[in-house]
């Protein structure tokens, strides 16, 4: 179970991404952060705190649940539906630069769903994408604007992002999928 990022590394990476966001957008005016549930939300909150320190004012932050927009929603013949959680975007996204935040970028299907969900809330002037880890294997033409760490993986591997707010500690690890080791 190799550790790809520890707490310190995650902190430095988010600080670097926050600076890139400020540089790319020439400040944080008209900027808002939207975290994709579950682990995109605490990452977005941390970025907002860093941006406040850098730029001196608050950046609006929301949480997006993409469950109802998934393309595999009704595909499973039998089995539980994914649990739907609340979307909380307490501001207008019209005309704003929206920075979408997620933990891992893999097939791109989550981000496709997030884009559809977001666009139902209004017409942002741009949508940019932050991911903590990009592990490759895209199935859709989607690319992140800000990447914490690029990790070449095989499909038999999986990335686990653990965050203090949810899991009690900060850690990114690369694991073998159970039962596929042979």
């Amino acid at each position, binding site marked *: 179970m190799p550790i790809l990022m520890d707490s310190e590394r995650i902190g430095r990476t988010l600080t670097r991404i926050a600076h890139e966001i400020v540089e790319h957008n020439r400040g944080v005016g008209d900027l808002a952060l939207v975290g994709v549930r579950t682990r995109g939300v605490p990452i977005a909150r941390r970025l907002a705190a860093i941006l406040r320190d850098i730029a001196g004012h608050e950046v609006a932050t929301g949480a997006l*649940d993409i*469950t*109802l*927009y998934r393309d595999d*929603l*009704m595909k*499973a*013949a*039998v*089995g*539980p*539906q994914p*649990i*739907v*959680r*609340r*979307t*909380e975007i307490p501001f207008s996204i019209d005309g704003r630069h929206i920075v979408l935040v997620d933990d891992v970028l893999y097939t791109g299907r989550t981000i496709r769903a997030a884009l*559809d*969900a977001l666009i*139902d*809330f*209004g017409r942002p002037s741009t949508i940019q994408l932050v991911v903590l880890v990009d592990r490759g294997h895209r199935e859709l033409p989607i690319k992140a604007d800000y990447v914490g760490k690029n990790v070449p993986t095989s499909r038999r591997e999986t990335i686990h992002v653990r965050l203090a707010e949810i899991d009690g500690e900060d850690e990114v690890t690369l694991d073998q999928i159970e039962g596929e080791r042979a």
Partner: protein
Amino acid sequence: MSDTAARLRGKDLLGIADLTASEITLILDTAEAMKEVSSRPIKKVPALRGKTVINLFYEPSTRTRTSFEVAEKRLSADTLNIAIGTSSVVKGETLIDTALNLEAMSPDIIVLRHASSGACHLLARTCKAGIVNAGDGMHEHPTQALLDAFTIRERKGRLQGLKVAIVGDLLHSRVFRSNIYLLTKMGAEVWVCGPPTLMPAGIELVGVHVTTRVEEAVEGADAIMMLRIQLERMEGGYFPSLREYFQVFGMTPERVTLAKPDAIIMHPGPMNRGVEIASEVADGPASVILDQVANGVAVRMAVLYLLAGGGEHEAVA
């Protein structure tokens, strides 16, 4: 107290009696997310795209049918409404034949309201489609009880340990039956009150407090749920007059003061003002009657979403 189930067992929602406390919690939690959808500028999500839902109503209904239809549309399902006055039922077709013919058009869910208790169970055994009970005779009206519970939980943060008073025609009310199952499963303290002629036999055996004094039922209550006096049943001579009923059982501002200061007043509609509830109470600050209607859409969206994903369950013959 109860954890949350990961899914609903089975393809149907026939009654609260079949649900566990953790399934009820799952529906209520999912409804919270669904409620947010109704507050968006675009009140629609693609979750049930390509699914077909038939609303088959053998009894008149405005609120429930509209609420289901809005819920279906907000989830992007294709909906069909069949009102019985314009269907083959007037030509003598039986419920099962009607359902089998509808089923031949492969709907995913049939929402059924019927005047006979057990009609939904009959259909559930016959059909592959999921059946949602929208009220069957004097038996159950599960989505009404779920929206009542959602409304109480939204205001009070919980159901466990609350005192809930249910006042009115207990005998004919399917809303009452579903609510009793739900509230007792979720650990609420339920008080029921009505004229003895309108109480089902054996009511005291289901784990509720029974009284004929409305003051006793309401005292210290967190929520007061009024049931409709079904005027069409007045010929049964259950009580002398509507005026007398109001005097003995009607929810007046004076009686409301006996409840907790932050108590909420509920009514499943349609209301008879001046019979079971005074207008000052129905329109007063404690009334959550219109919240119940709004929450009905969210709860029905949750039920449809959770059932539509249940997949291909075998119909049990």
